[in-house]
């Protein structure tokens, strides 16, 4: 029997709200950076407090990218596509060698089915990484820039994680390719934890030949050197990266993780009564909780906003031992996206929560806790992976 039409429409409003959720500042930032990369337009951004660092990096980079163009007389108002092909390009220059040796267009747009021109990058210790070497094997390629906060560190961690899990059915290759800086790249991957091939390409060859209009970009290249799929944007790319590696993004392959599915990302001024203890997502405060170790309780509505940013929030009950607390302090120090705080009436001594995910533990002395942190910090479950966990509320230890 049909429910009253008005009640149905009202009920359907929550479906719409879930399907088209709140638009976050970090998302606008991504749109603007991508657009500026695409159009190479000069001009300072107006102030938006709290975004200062990422934006300063973006603005400087846009300047750095643009100034050479101006010097070479192309001008700052070049159209986004179809850059004027000057007379210096000879007919031969319109063709190049593909990944499997075929003759292909020298400049292509990344679309499924397109046979792409090959290129060469090199590792930080100057070992060449020739894309042509991947002919005959499918390859998962991640194109990024070391200066791009939202597409550098966390996405590389995920790339390495997927590489570890993927077996040898597929090649992995990450390339720092828009105005790269080897020192910045070294500081990103410097700790020696990276076994996945990470290259640097500073000639702008990839950007030009593959018409890369914004980063981050992930490309699934078939064994025959044709594009199978292209993914833009952090959230889409992280999810695809785990899928490629066959990793279950629901649990990260970690025993005991509970997945709560889709959850509202609305902002509210009021207190919220959350269904989980502690909450794993839902309506939350405008401001997030700063990450770090807290000896006093924090407000749930702020912590949930942090979860949205890809933070792992570890809560402990009063029966946690001093050894547990030492482990938790170490975890909070090890990653700037870990939040630790006491929480009364927990169902267990320790509960680790990420957006829509939760793991209940009797002690911090288990590898599953660090695995949970590794997988879900800026992980594919987060609505805004990589967004900041500083500049909010709270003063951790």
């Amino acid at each position, binding site marked *: 029997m*049909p429910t009253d*039409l*008005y009640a*149905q*429409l*009202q009920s359907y*409003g929550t*479906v*719409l709200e879930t399907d*088209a959720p709140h638009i976050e500042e970090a998302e606008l930032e991504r749109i603007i950076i991508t657009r500026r990369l695409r159009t190479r337009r000069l001009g300072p951004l107006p102030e938006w407090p709290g975004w200062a660092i990422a934006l300063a990096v973006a603005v400087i980079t846009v300047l750095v990218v643009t100034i050479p163009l101006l010097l070479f007389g192309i001008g700052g108002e070049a159209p986004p596509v179809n850059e004027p092909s000057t007379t210096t390009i000879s007919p031969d220059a319109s063709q190049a060698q593909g990944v499997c040796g075929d003759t292909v267009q020298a400049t292509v747009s990344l679309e499924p089915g397109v046979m792409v021109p090959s290129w060469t990058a090199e590792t930080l210790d100057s070992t060449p990484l020739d894309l042509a070497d991947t002919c005959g094997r499918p390859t998962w390629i991640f194109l990024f820039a070391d200066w791009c906060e939202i597409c550098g560190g966390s996405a590389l961690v995920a790339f390495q994680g997927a590489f570890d899990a993927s077996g040898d059915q597929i090649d992995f290759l990450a390339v720092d390719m828009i105005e790269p800086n080897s020192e910045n790249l070294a500081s990103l991957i410097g700790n020696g934890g990276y076994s996945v091939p990470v290259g640097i390409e500073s000639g702008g060859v990839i950007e030009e030949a593959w018409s890369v209009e914004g980063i981050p970009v992930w490309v699934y290249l078939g064994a025959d050197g044709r594009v199978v799929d292209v993914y833009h944007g952090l959230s889409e790319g992280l999810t695809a990266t785990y899928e490629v590696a066959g990793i279950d993004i629901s649990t990260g392959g970690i025993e005991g993780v509970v997945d709560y599915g889709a959850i509202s990302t609305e902002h509210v001024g009021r207190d919220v009564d959350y269904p989980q203890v502690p909450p794993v997502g839902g309506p939350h405060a405008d401001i997030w909780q700063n990450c770090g170790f807290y000896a006093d309780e924090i407000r749930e509505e702020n912590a949930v906003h942090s979860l949205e940013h890809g933070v792992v929030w570890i809560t402990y009950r009063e029966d946690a031992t001093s050894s547990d607390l030492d482990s938790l302090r170490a975890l909070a120090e090890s990653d700037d996206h870990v939040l630790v705080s006491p929480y009364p009436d927990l169902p267990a001594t320790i509960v680790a929560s990420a957006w829509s995910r939760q793991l209940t533990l009797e002690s911090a002395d288990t590898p599953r806790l660090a695995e949970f942190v590794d997988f879900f910090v800026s992980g594919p479950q987060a609505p805004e992976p990589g967004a900041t966990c500083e500049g909010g509320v709270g003063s951790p230890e």
Partner: protein
Amino acid sequence: LKQEEAVDLSFTDFARRAESRLRHALVARYGTETGRDAAAEALAYGWEHWDRVGTMNNPVGYLYRVGQSRARRSFRPATAWFPLPPDDHEPHVEPGLPSALAALSTKQRTVVVLIHCFAWSQREVADFLSVAPTTVQKHAERGIQKLRRELGVTDAD
């Protein structure tokens, strides 16, 4: 907003207040996917051009038009797309409702969704769309009548 207030208003404060209205209005018009993308594009535009947009009498109304032009240009909104409700959604929603909404005229759908799904008042819709309240009421009534016919529900409720 009066002009003097608008000049002082930071984009952060503006976005906090205007985000849901802009998103709801564009979702009502273009469906969830295109509507939300268009709203994000429009807000990003507003931020980039805040020195100009921030001094306007009705910045959110202006960004609604920016969103419309983005939607037309970038997302090819031939038909509005609305998601199917989950089977277990409470209270129950007829599976035919999304397509019935998509089949309404643009004006009817915008008004019906804003008033009945997003709980705007007729006055708020009229102000936002810059049309007379009587026009809003007319579109809302016709939209509801058409939905009733499509879904086969009676007027008894």
